[in-house]
Structures are given as structure tokens and as C-alpha cells.
């Protein structure tokens, strides 16, 4: 009986092509476990010990997967002709294939926890069998069992895909990877991916760039096995690390400021973070401006002016009628010298005219906020006009130059504002040690990407999602790759900002329940709003995804002493 079945299989084998063997072998290994050469394969001319069958099958599968994934990525490397010295020795053949594909000078071993220990003395290129068995067993063997349940061995699809991979064997692409990849258990690979990322960062920190290089490539391969948010985050971080290793720094920021505006618009539309920031800040400003007839807002982060229509409308409808509203917008210089600020100002002016609010706009172009002086901004005395200063995701850039933040805070004080609203990312990406920064950023942006992924239940506009990711990707690149004055994404936590503001002479202003309710409602309107959380933190509002706060809005006023000082100096 068994013989007949085997004979049938043999006939099928002859009919199929040679690489369908991968699947057959897995079947064979279930049936025959002799100590001698496997009979059926011997018929075909391959000498494989039956005891080796499982391992050979594994290696072949890894080979196929590795081929498959690199082709997906579109990585076409140099092709070499692999020379098979002894094709009938299947085990050895696969071994030589795999070692061809592993060209690095490092062999790494993963211990039980998946952490990488680099083997500094060892410069061999051969991955021994031991390595394969060192792979945590469950992942590998589970897959084998799964494969065995697949009914149709020689289905045409598997045949054709295997045949193309077979063809690829002839001109094998060189894949630089530290070890063959087992793309089986996605969750396990996910954990491994995170560990590899962290190990790579550590290597970079220790300036061990060879190891880092190998790990970065490995990340690329592992990342492909993931899906969704994790994959994208890993890809961005891998790119940033690669840039750091090869010292290919991203182009100068000033050239791309208009592109950044576009990206931020898409980010605005995809997820609630910016809307939350704008609405909560506006609420604070609105409350500060009650009973004022002339108001002046200085906006450090004008971009497209998306924050202000809602404020203008709220001012129009406030009891007692709207005040005279003056807006001063500050923005970076545009590469093509267009006056983007004036255009935004003009549009806001049109809106204000439509709904009947007296409006005036001035724009100031500055490379950095520290270049400005309060006197340029034409601040009127506080009896006549109430001033508010607004900064959304801008203040942290000042931390890249020493003394800049103090200068700007002093300028703000000299403006004698009624309220200062600050929205910043809730994360510490400004640690001195690179590794700490990296780990913190990894967690932060993973959560961010997660929320982006989940907030679009149906990808109504995929382009928005992609552009938002690019927007975040640039931040990642800046945090990881750049150093010194180039590294502008120096986010700090709310507690750190609190200390800084207190030291500079500001008192916190509590944001109040109106802002909280409005923010909660806004979030409830977003599909996927279940994941977003609004938290109140000692008068400040934080928006987070599940348990992790991601951005924080806070409001400040001058301490009484400061206020009287400013009045005297005006």
C-alpha cells in the first residue's frame, strides 16, 4: 500500500518540476525516518540522509522565502553564478546556497531572548547547522506541521512560483543578512524585529558600524514579514539608522518647508492630533479674551492657518459681539520666495470678512523664532489690546541652539501676553544618550503609527494616510539621524516644559472643563475614536492613544511679578 502511494508520488514528481520537491520532502519526512539515504530522493539522484530531511526542508524553505522577499522588495543585487560542486549532495548544496547569500563578516547568535550577541572574533561566512537549531524551536517546527496539512503538493501555483524561484537560483541575488530568516510566526518576528532595532541602535551608539550595518539589513528583511503599522515604523527607523551609519544626512530642511506644509495638511486631515491641539488652544485663548475689545494673537506656527477659522467664528458668536482681531503669523522663508504667509493671511481675512469680524494680518518670515524680537511685532500696550501667543509643535526646535529658548521666552514675556498656549509632543526625544532617544522614539512613533492605522476603518483617502506617515517619517529621521543644530525635533515631556516655564516666570493656566468636553466630543466623532483618550493632567490636556499620551496642550500666563515688570518697561 505504502509502496503504491510512493510510486504514485514518484510519478508525480517526474511530471512536476524539480523545485516542487520542497513540499514533497516535508511529506516524506513524516513517513520515513530511516537512518540511511532516503529512497525516493535517491531515485532522483539526490543523496539525503533521512535524518537530515527536516533540516534540509527547513533550509530550502528559508531559501525560498528569502528569495521571495527580496524579490518583493525589488532589491536586485549583483547576480553571481553559484557553483555547485556536488549537486547530488543536497544538504551541502543548500548549505552552499545559504552561505552564498550570507556575505557578511559577522555571524551572530540569538540567545533565548532573541538578543543579539555579536561574535567579534569569528569572521566566517558559513552558517552552521547549529545556528538553525538555535532558532527557538516552536516557530520552525510549527510551520512544518502546518505545511504537512496542505493537501495539494503539486498545485500549479506552487509549481510556477517555485519554478521562478528555481530560475532565480541560477542567478542568485546576494542577500546580505546575518542569518537566514524564518518568516513564520509574525508575532515572534515582531519581537525579534524590535530587539534587532534596539541592538542596531546600540551598535551605532558604540560606533560599531559593521555590526550596525549588518543589523540594519536584517531589519529590512524582518520588517517585510510584518504588516501594517509595525512594518512602516520599522522601515522608517531602519532608514534613519542606515542614514546615520552611512552618514547620508537628509537634505537641508529649509528647502522643503512648503512640502512640510503639504504633509502637515494631510496629517491634519487623517488624525485628530492637530485638531485637538487647535481646538484646545483656541478654547484657552477664547476664555482669556473674554471682555476684551481688541485682541492680538501671535502665532509661531502659522502654516496654512487651519487653527484660526474656528477661533474667528467663535469670536464672532461670542456674547457681546466680536472684538477686533489682529493676527501676526510667523513662518519660515519659502524656497521660491513666494509670500506664503501673506496668502494665508489674505484667506483668513476673507473668512473674517464673510462672518463679520474685524481682522488684520501681518506676516513675519524668520528662519528661527530666536531671530525675532518683540519690538518688531508691534505690540500695543496691554490696556488697549490683549495679546495671546500660540505655538503648536514649534518651541522644541529652539532647543537645538543653546540660548535660543531663553531668548524666545524672554521675548514672549516682553509682549506681556494674557495667555501663552503651547502644544508639544509628549515624549523625551532630547536625551543626551543616543540609545535612550532611540528607544523612546521607537515607542512613541509605534504608538503614533498604530493610531493612524486604526483611525481609518475604511481607507477613504489612502494618500492622506501615506502623506501623514511621510510627515512622521521625517520626524523620525531627524530624531535618529541628525545631531547638533540639525536635530530640531527635540521633543520634551510636559513635565520638562513645566519646569522650564516655571523657571522663566510663567504660571500655569488651567484649561477648564469646556475645553475638555469639546476635546472629548471631537474625539468621539472620529471613527476609531475608541482608542483615543483625553486626559487632564493638572490643568493641561493630553491626547493619547490607549494608555500612551502623545501630545499635550498647556496654557501659561505671566506671574504677577513679571506682569507688573513688563508693564513698566513698555
Amino acid at each position, binding site marked *: 500500500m505504502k509502496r503504491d502511494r510512493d510510486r504514485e508520488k514518484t510519478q508525480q514528481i517526474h511530471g512536476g518540476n524539480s523545485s516542487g520537491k520542497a513540499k514533497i520532502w516535508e511529506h516524506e519526512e513524516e513517513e520515513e525516518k530511516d537512518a540511511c539515504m532516503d529512497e525516493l530522493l535517491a531515485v532522483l539522484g539526490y543523496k539525503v540522509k533521512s535524518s537530515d530531511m527536516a533540516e534540509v526542508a527547513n533550509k530550502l524553505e528559508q531559501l525560498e522565502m528569502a528569495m521571495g522577499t527580496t524579490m518583493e522588495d525589488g532589491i536586485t543585487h549583483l547576480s553571481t553564478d553559484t557553483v555547485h560542486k556536488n549537486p547530488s549532495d543536497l544538504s551541502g548544496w543548500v548549505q552552499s546556497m545559504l552561505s552564498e547569500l550570507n556575505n557578511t563578516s559577522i555571524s551572530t547568535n540569538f540567545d533565548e531572548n532573541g538578543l543579539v550577541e555579536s561574535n567579534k572574533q569569528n569572521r566566517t561566512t558559513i552558517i552552521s547547522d547549529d545556528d538553525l537549531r538555535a532558532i527557538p524551536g516552536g516557530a520552525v517546527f510549527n510551520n512544518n506541521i502546518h505545511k504537512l496539512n496542505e493537501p495539494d503538493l503539486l498545485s500549479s501555483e506552487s509549481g510556477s512560483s517555485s519554478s521562478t524561484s528555481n530560475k532565480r537560483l541560477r542567478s542568485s541575488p546576494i542577500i546580505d543578512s546575518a542569518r537566514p530568516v524564518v518568516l513564520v510566526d509574525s508575532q515572534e518576528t515582531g519581537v525579534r524585529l524590535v530587539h534587532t532595532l534596539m541592538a542596531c541602535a546600540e551598535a551605532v551608539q558604540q560606533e560599531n558600524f559593521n555590526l550596525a550595518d549588518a543589523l540594519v539589513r536584517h531589519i529590512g528583511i524582518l520588517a517585510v514579514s510584518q504588516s501594517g503599522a509595525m512594518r512602516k515604523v520599522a522601515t522608517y527607523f531602519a532608514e534613519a539608522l542606515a542614514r546615520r551609519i552611512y552618514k547620508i544626512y537628509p537634505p537641508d530642511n529649509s528647502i522643503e518647508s512648503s512640502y512640510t506644509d503639504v504633509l502637515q495638511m494631510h496629517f491634519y486631515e487623517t488624525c485628530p492630533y492637530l485638531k485637538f491641539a487647535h481646538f484646545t488652544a483656541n478654547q484657552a485663548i477664547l476664555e482669556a479674551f473674554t471682555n476684551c475689545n481688541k485682541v492680538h494673537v501671535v502665532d509661531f506656527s502659522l502654516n496654512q492657518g487651519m487653527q484660526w477659522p474656528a477661533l474667528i467664528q467663535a469670536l464672532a458668536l461670542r456674547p457681546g459681539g466680536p472684538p477686533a482681531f489682529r493676527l501676526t503669523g510667523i513662518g519660515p522663508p519659502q524656497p521660491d520666495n513666494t509670500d506664503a504667509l501673506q496668502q494665508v493671511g489674505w484667506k483668513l481675512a476673507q473668512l473674517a470678512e464673510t462672518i*463679520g469680524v474685524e481682522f488684520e494680518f501681518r506676516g513675519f518670515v524668520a528662519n528661527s523664532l530666536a531671530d525675532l524680537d518683540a519690538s518688531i511685532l508691534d505690540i500695543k500696550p496691554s490696556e488697549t489690546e490683549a495679546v495671546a501667543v500660540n505655538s503648536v509643535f514649534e518651541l522644541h526646535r529652539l532647543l537645538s541652539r543653546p540660548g535660543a529658548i531663553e531668548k524666545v521666552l524672554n521675548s514672549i514675556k516682553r509682549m506681556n501676553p494674557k495667555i501663552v498656549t503651547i502644544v508639544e509632543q509628549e515624549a523625551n526625544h532630547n536625551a543626551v544618550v543616543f540609545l535612550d532617544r532611540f528607544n523612546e522614539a521607537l515607542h512613541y512613533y509605534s504608538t503614533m503609527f498604530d493610531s493612524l492605522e486604526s483611525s481609518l*476603518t475604511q481607507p477613504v483617502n489612502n494618500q492622506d494616510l501615506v502623506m501623514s506617515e511621510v510627515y512622521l517619517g521625517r520626524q523620525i529621521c531627524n530624531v535618529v539621524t541628525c545631531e547638533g543644530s540639525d536635530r530640531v525635533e527635540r521633543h520634551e515631556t510636559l513635565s520638562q516644559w513645566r519646569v522650564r516655564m516655571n523657571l522663566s516666570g510663567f504660571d500655569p493656566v488651567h484649561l477648564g472643563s469646556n475645553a475638555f468636553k469639546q476635546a472629548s466630543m471631537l474625539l468621539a466623532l472620529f471613527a476609531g475614536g475608541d482608542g483615543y483618550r483625553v486626559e487632564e493632567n493638572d490643568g493641561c490636556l493630553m491626547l493619547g492613544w490607549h494608555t500612551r499620551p502623545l501630545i499635550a496642550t498647556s496654557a501659561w500666563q505671566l506671574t504677577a511679578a513679571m506682569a507688573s515688570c513688563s508693564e513698566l518697561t513698555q
Partner: protein
Amino acid sequence: MGTNFFINDNQDVLIEILKRLDGRSLGVAACVCKLWCGIARNDSLWEHLCFRHVSQPQEGVRTVVLALGGYRRLYMVCVRPVLNRLRKWRPIGMESDSEIVRRVYWTRHEVELSLSLFCVDYYERVLLGGGGGGGGGGGGGRHGGDGARTTSLMFLCKAVNV
């Protein structure tokens, strides 16, 4: 006794009836015939619909809303999605489910939020040239002709899994 009562001859009665309908029915009514369509498109009907359950309609709201596109658009773009979504949402402090589901009144906060979103919609649509627009998911847009829906409020258009 053959005094037939034709509703179309008594438009004031028709208007009174339409005033008491909900949004969807008003939309359906607009599809009946040209006369009904003309009447149903009257913005004051939609104003009534938007604000009939708000305790005190603020002064000046009408000017603003009319300037930003009218009550019918306000209803379609903001009020309806806000009410639909928030009806199923349990705000802090609400006890029973049935109270939420059957809630018809809406609070000052929701009014303010809707108006703000409406303003943002106007800004994006008219002034920023409406990035992308259109393609909104569930509901709305049936009364067409008001131009593409702006993308910032796309999140309001997405169907909510009830």
C-alpha cells in the same frame, strides 16, 4: 361634500408640516415634486431643524451660518453626523442607554463644535481650494450641487459601525 384638500394649494400648511420633520424625511420630501423641492430647499426650514431643540439660539448665528453656506449645508455637513455619532456615544455622566439613543436635544457644546467644524469646512472648501474633496462615505451629498465635500471633515462622513 366634495371639498378636496390639496396640500399643494395650501403651501403654508405644507411648510408647517415640513417644519416638524426630521432631516431625512425632509430630504425625502424634497424628492416628491418640483414644488416640494423648492419649498424643502428653503433655508429657514433647515434652520428650524438645526436649532429647534436648542434652548436659546444665539444672536448672530444666522448671519454667520448663512455666510458660511447656509443651514442646509450646516445640517448635512456637520449637524447630522455630529448628532448621529454623539447619540451613540456615552459622554461622562450619562446613565442610561435609552436616554442617549432617544436624545433629540443637543447641548450648547455640540452646537459650538458643529459651528466650528462648519467654519473649518468653509475655509478649506472655499479658500484653500478644497483639497481632494468628495468621495465621502455614508450619507449626505444627496442634495448635491453644493460642491465637493472637504477632506478635513471626511471623518464625519465615514460610516460608523453601530
